């Protein structure tokens, strides 16, 4: 502590000296930069990783923009997360496999072009076609003909368009799925399903430079890698018109700088409060800090391709590990309550009706060191006497919580070496090690939902060979229950089936649920009515300025 104080004094002395010389050099004299027009707000942003095509954007930063400039058939209610009709007049089906979709009349893109059934079908065909390298192509995997436009083995595609899509009128088209999927209409709010104007296909390079959509905002200017200015589109006909004059998104490399800018009145909205600032955010911002549940769950997955983790009895070890983790303490001390201890494998944003069931995990998620020790012993002990939790150390303060989880496990088992963290330098390397099945113990697995459905929290993660089943867990009962649930036309019954499937996950402890992640944001005094949607993206169009 004493050393710390000394260092502070020295640094202060240096700063004062430097500041003195700086004054001599003349100052830029900025002052707080309030934007002209009064009604435009500025918000922090990160450089999107991929070109801003709807079917190619799979992370929040690009998603933010798509959310402002596009409207799909459905839109997820920012508060309840329920899928509500937006461009869809009606979506009919009798067998949960063939759907007839009617698009509302009167919608246009911001360049004046009409939004028709063709706008959707062309966009979906583009997204599903292998040659276009769209990273969200798998979203169209349920549509008939996907295996032809996107052969799984990477061989040459034999069709350019999905045979399951047919335009039947100016405003109607039909969708044939390759399996029964009763909740398919509810997935259509995902940005990948957005309609695209003809300009996208005729002048693709120009479109990517300055995307044109049908949402409440239009892009005024876009300087790649540094900022995007969005303006309210006056011609927007939808019910959710923008309540402000526009949004300027500024790219920040470091969310700490964004937070400092907010403090200095140089920025209006920060939608990612840095972990280091969580302690003082209440005193800095008061009630201008929001912390609401988002559809993100963090889990620890296991390598089921490794015999050590897949032999009988290991489910007890996995459950034992789960019971050795003091979730309450970790979420309070490390995350300052921006995470909630998980008691099932979904997310509170689904709501009770949507399939979230508090306490579904039961005892298996309760902290009980004695039971943990007993379970692990019964199961044959930890493989190799030690678990290594692999994580990527470059973002998201993962190191802190992995160390805390390990501490918790070590304390519960009374063994200092029972658990250690195994950091991997970059996220890309972490992912490639997972893909190459190189994990030898539990590893960090985060899941951000694509759409607020219980199906999305289970099928992609635990179904045999599913796209994000990183641990390669496989269980016949689970697969059977999921298939039955998808075929169920009654939503309530489908949800029930999914929850039964979740029970199978619990009994085998296919992954240890850790906590639900919240979205957090802070904003300036100029703003009001700031909310985060279940995807932890600010609801920009509802923000009021001034």
């Amino acid at each position: 502590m004493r050393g710390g104080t000394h260092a502070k004094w020295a640094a202060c002395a240096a700063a004062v000296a430097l500041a003195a010389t700086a004054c001599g050099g003349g100052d830029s004299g900025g002052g707080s930069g309030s934007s002209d027009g009064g009604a435009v707000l500025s918000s922090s942003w990160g450089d999107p990783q991929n070109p801003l095509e709807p079917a190619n954007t799979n992370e929040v930063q690009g998603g933010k923009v798509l959310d402002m400039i596009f409207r799909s058939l459905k839109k997820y209610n920012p508060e309840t997360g329920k899928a509500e009709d937006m461009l869809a007049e009606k979506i009919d089906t009798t067998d949960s496999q063939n759907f007839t979709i009617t698009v509302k009349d009167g919608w246009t893109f911001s360049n004046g072009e009409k939004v028709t059934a063709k706008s959707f079908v062309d966009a979906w065909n583009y997204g599903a076609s292998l040659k276009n390298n769209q990273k969200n192509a798998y979203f169209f995997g349920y549509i008939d003909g996907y295996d032809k436009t996107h052969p799984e083995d990477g061989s040459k595609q034999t069709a350019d368009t999905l045979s399951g899509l047919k335009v039947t009128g100016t405003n109607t088209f039909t969708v044939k799925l390759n399996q029964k999927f009763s909740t398919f209409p509810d997935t259509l709010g995902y940005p990948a399903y957005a309609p695209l104007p003809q300009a996208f296909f005729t002048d693709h390079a120009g479109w990517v430079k300055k995307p044109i959509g049908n949402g409440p905002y239009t892009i005024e200017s876009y300087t790649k890698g540094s900022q995007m200015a969005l303006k309210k589109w006056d011609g927007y006909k939808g019910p959710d018109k923008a309540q402000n004059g526009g949004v300027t998104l500024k790219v920040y490399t470091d969310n700490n700088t964004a937070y400092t800018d907010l403090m200095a009145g140089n920025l209006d909205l920060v939608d990612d409060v840095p972990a280091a600032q969580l302690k003082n955010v209440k005193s800095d911002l008061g009630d201008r800090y929001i912390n609401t549940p988002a559809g993100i769950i963090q889990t620890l997955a296991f390598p089921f391709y490794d015999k050590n983790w897949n032999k009988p009895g290991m489910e007890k070890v996995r459950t034992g590990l789960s019971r050795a983790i003091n979730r309450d303490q970790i979420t309070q001390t490390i995350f300052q309550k921006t995470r909630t201890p998980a008691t099932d494998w979904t997310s509170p944003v689904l709501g009770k009706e949507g399939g979230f069931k508090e306490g579904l995990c039961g005892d298996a998620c309760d902290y009980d060191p004695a039971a943990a020790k007993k379970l692990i012993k019964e199961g044959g002990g930890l493989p190799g006497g030690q678990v290594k939790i692999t994580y990527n150390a470059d973002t998201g303060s993962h190191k802190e919580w992995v160390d805390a989880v390990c501490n918790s496990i070590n304390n519960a088992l009374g063994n200092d070496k029972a658990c250690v963290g195994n950091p991997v330098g970059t996220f890309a390397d972490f992912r490639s090690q997972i893909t190459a099945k190189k994990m030898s113990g539990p590893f960090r697995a985060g899941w951000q939902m694509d759409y607020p459905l219980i199906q999305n929290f289970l099928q992609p993660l635990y179904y045999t060979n599913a796209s994000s089943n990183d641990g390669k867990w496989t269980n016949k009962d689970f697969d059977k229950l999921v298939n039955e649930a998808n075929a169920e036309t009654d939503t309530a019954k489908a949800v029930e089936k999914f929850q039964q499937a979740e029970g199978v996950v619990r009994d085998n402890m296919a992954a240890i649920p850790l906590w639900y992640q919240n979205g957090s944001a802070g904003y300036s005094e100029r703003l009001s009515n700031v909310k985060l949607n279940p995807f932890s993206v600010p609801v920009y169009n509802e923000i009021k300025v001034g």
Partner: protein
Amino acid sequence: MGRYVVRRLLQMIPVFIGSTLLIFLMVNVMGDPIAGLCGDKQCDAATSAQLKKEFGLDKPVWQQYLTYMGHVFTGDFGTAFNGQKVTELMATAFPVTIRLTIVAILFEIVIGITLGVITGLRRGRPVDTSVLLLTLVVISVPTFVTGLLLQLLLGVEWGWIKPSVSTDATFGELIVPGLVLASVSLAYVTRLTRTSIAENRRSDYVRTAVAKGLPRQRVIVRHLLRNSLIPVVTFIGTDIGALMGGAIVTERIFNIHGVGYQLYQGILRQNTQTVVGFVTVLVLVFLVANLLVDLLYAVLDPRIRYA
């Protein structure tokens, strides 16, 4: 002189190839860059195979390197993962970093050398001692501490500057970041100049000049300073390269979208094309700056001749 320059230019070739190869290998060792493109999900096999083919990642590393170098010589630095040409990224990033470097170098020259001359001429006096102490403090405090402190004090507490630099990154906005970036080198420049001046003050030619009755101003500037600047020029010359590459921390603190920002993002996303491209240019800058420094010697000290 001409032959010397040619020889030095030829020497650059192996250095250039060696350093680019090293960087290329290092970025490749980090693993599969495509895996990081799909978030926490796994890219579907077909798409990732297609992407690998497009970025040439399916070929052996030596072949990738050769194709890359072939392209570089025709001025094509490849495409970043977000679909932008690397040359386009350079065109936006380098002007910003060059401005930042100019500000930093100016600080080094103006403040560093002035302080060095003053302290060198007044050795042992209170001015000397306090400046020495001050430089010691500056050298021992890491850049990110000075950076964050100045940002907090000037930007938030006193509101003199904006805590972050806008997209335009004009000279005015870059003064504080430039000072932060220069601070450590500035202290070294001061100390180097001071030692050099103090040493040369006792040399024969200075005594002669004083004895001739030359005005004090002229003795100091023409005779003493010019001869004392050689080590300082070397330092500043090599520092140009170091400042441009080393701006990562400063650029991050002040949110400047320059070379450091592009490099940082390139490394995080394992974007070989961006990282190798930017480093290649930095290597070139470094080599050229070194050559210029060596040539400057001859200008400063007529005794030095290059054959």
